[in-house]
């Protein structure tokens, strides 16, 4: 005999769980709003916050210098931090889901190393006859997608396990790192410096055009991933169980890998290598709301966006007037925070 009271109590608690997750999403949206504002307001020209706000709300009323600084320089960069952070956070989350491994990210799979090699190759080869603004992102993108294609081929084979894909990814990471070192070894000191700067990762190269491309690709991939939210949740139960629930695991794996590679390759091509976010943002999101991908997909994207936006603010604030490479800031600030978080999680579960 069903106990109606108990059932409705459990139903109410499930709804409360979902509302709590919605609240987390809302909190992150608000935090991102604040961080975006701070990011636009921070910079070497020391514009007052009031002028920045006025310019953002009514660009026509600002003087041309302020307008140029806020609208053409700072705003696209600040927005790019959000978009790239979201792409890396979401890409990391889905790599971890796909490979059922908390250590996986597009970086541990060698995708970033491949992009780095591609960018360096474009620099060394003089841009294949193209402008460096096009050649470097193009080189990074093509190499990143080539690396992804190799993993894709592996994932196509039915009997290949997630561990094999991870091992192949790690092998590729070492291969592309070595190739990159070889290029640096063979290059002039000037070219080596350019390669190193690209590898640091920087949002400063952002234009409205690169922002639009990255945002478009990220949004499209995010929507397509979100449509598979339930299937991806099933995948967290293990491949055999996901299949038993009717998920076509091979197809889902291929589709997700393609979307992750596309999103990550686009982001890395324009801003260089910004590590760590793809690993950490999904963990933070998962700790807050669990494995339900309907919430994990948006929250890992929001978490990545917030992390990179805050890093962007910090990279401009550590030394007034100086700009630290954002990839360095992300890791230096993020690592201690992350270790504190995982130790806390261990205590909670124990």
């Amino acid at each position, binding site marked *: 005999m*069903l*106990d109606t009271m*108990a*059932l409705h109590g*459990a*139903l109410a*608690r*499930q709804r409360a*769980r*979902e509302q709590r997750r919605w609240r987390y999403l809302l909190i992150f949206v608000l935090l991102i709003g604040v961080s975006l504002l701070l990011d636009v307001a921070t910079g070497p020209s020391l514009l007052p916050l009031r002028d920045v706000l006025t310019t953002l709300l009514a660009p026509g009323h600002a003087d041309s210098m302020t307008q140029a600084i806020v609208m053409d320089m700072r705003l696209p960069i600040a927005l790019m931090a959000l978009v790239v952070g979201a792409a890396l956070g979401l890409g990391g989350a889905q790599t971890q889901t796909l490979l059922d491994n908390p250590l996986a990210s597009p970086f541990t799979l060698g995708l970033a190393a491949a992009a780095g090699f591609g960018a360096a190759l474009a620099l060394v080869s003089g841009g294949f006859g193209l402008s460096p603004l096009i050649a470097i992102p193009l080189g990074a993108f093509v190499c990143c997608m080539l690396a992804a294609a190799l993993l894709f081929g592996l994932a196509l084979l039915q009997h290949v396990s997630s561990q094999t894909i991870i091992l192949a990814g790690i092998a590729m990471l070492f291969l592309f790192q070595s190739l990159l070192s070889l290029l640096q070894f063979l290059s002039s000191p000037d070219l080596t410096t350019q390669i190193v700067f690209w590898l640091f990762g920087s949002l400063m190269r952002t234009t409205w055009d690169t922002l639009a491309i990255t945002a478009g690709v990220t949004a499209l991939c995010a929507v397509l991933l979100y449509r598979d*939210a*339930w*299937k991806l*949740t*099933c995948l*967290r*139960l*293990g491949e*055999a*169980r996901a*299949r*038993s*629930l*009717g*998920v*076509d695991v091979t197809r889902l794996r291929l589709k997700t890998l393609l979307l992750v590679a596309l999103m990550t390759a686009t982001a890395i091509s324009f801003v260089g290598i910004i590590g760590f976010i793809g690993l950490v943002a999904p963990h933070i999101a*998962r700790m807050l709301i*669990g*494995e*339900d991908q*309907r919430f994990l997909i948006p929250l890992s994207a929001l978490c990545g966006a917030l992390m990179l936006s805050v890093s962007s603010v910090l990279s401009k604030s550590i030394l007034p007037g100086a700009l630290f490479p954002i990839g360095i800031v992300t890791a230096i600030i993020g690592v201690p925070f992350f270790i504190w978080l995982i130790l806390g999680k261990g205590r909670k*579960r124990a």
Partner: protein
Amino acid sequence: MLELQQLSLHIGQQPLVRNLDLQLQPGQLHVLIGPNGTGKTSLLRALFGELTPQAGSIRHGGETLSRLQLARWRRRFGYMPQNIQLELDLSVLEVVVLGRLDSLGMRLSDDDILAALGALQALGIAQLADRPMYSLSGGQRQMVLFAQVLLRDPQIMLLDEPVSALDLQHQMQLMEHLHRQTRAKGWISLVVLHDLNLAAQYADQLIVLAGGELQAFGPPAEVLTPELISRLYRVPVDILHDRDGSPFIRTLRPESLPA
């Protein structure tokens, strides 16, 4: 009826099952027994379309299993694989509700949630609904995964060692529920068990698989003989009968055997 005709299965070059003919009837609980490594799990995987047979065919409802209509084929099945390692931060309720994957909308409806709770309640574990999966014991996980399979509302049940981590009470609860529902809903149920006494107690039909071949098929009282069990498992046994007349198997320690 689920019909296997001349089915042969290989893993790599290794033949597992040879020329197996079987007919599994609706409303009947079939229990598959046999020593380790005789292809019981592989047979279940083949029925679900995860392993391609080297030869033979599998038919149900006038259709033959083929790669082309795999998604539709699998919709008929409630399949519970062996593995119960689930270190997940999802509530029990959220795991069970995934049994309705084919029809879930982006927002869980009250109906979805109540159906999942109903399945948990039917197994006497509704109190676990809010617990995260990672906090459950192996046995509790197994019950939760059985509830998930129930939610699929299948025509064919394939359960691979569904009671391996359960205590006596929950073994009985699961098997009783399965037995009742198989009758009531006309499921074709096929369960792999290692506990021969549990198999004898609940099976309508026992399927004995060993050495890649069907050794016996029929009601437990007819199939379970000391000779067959001793031959298959290489242990001496006595067969007694419980008060319902079901065979009861007891292994004999070497020192209790006549010299």
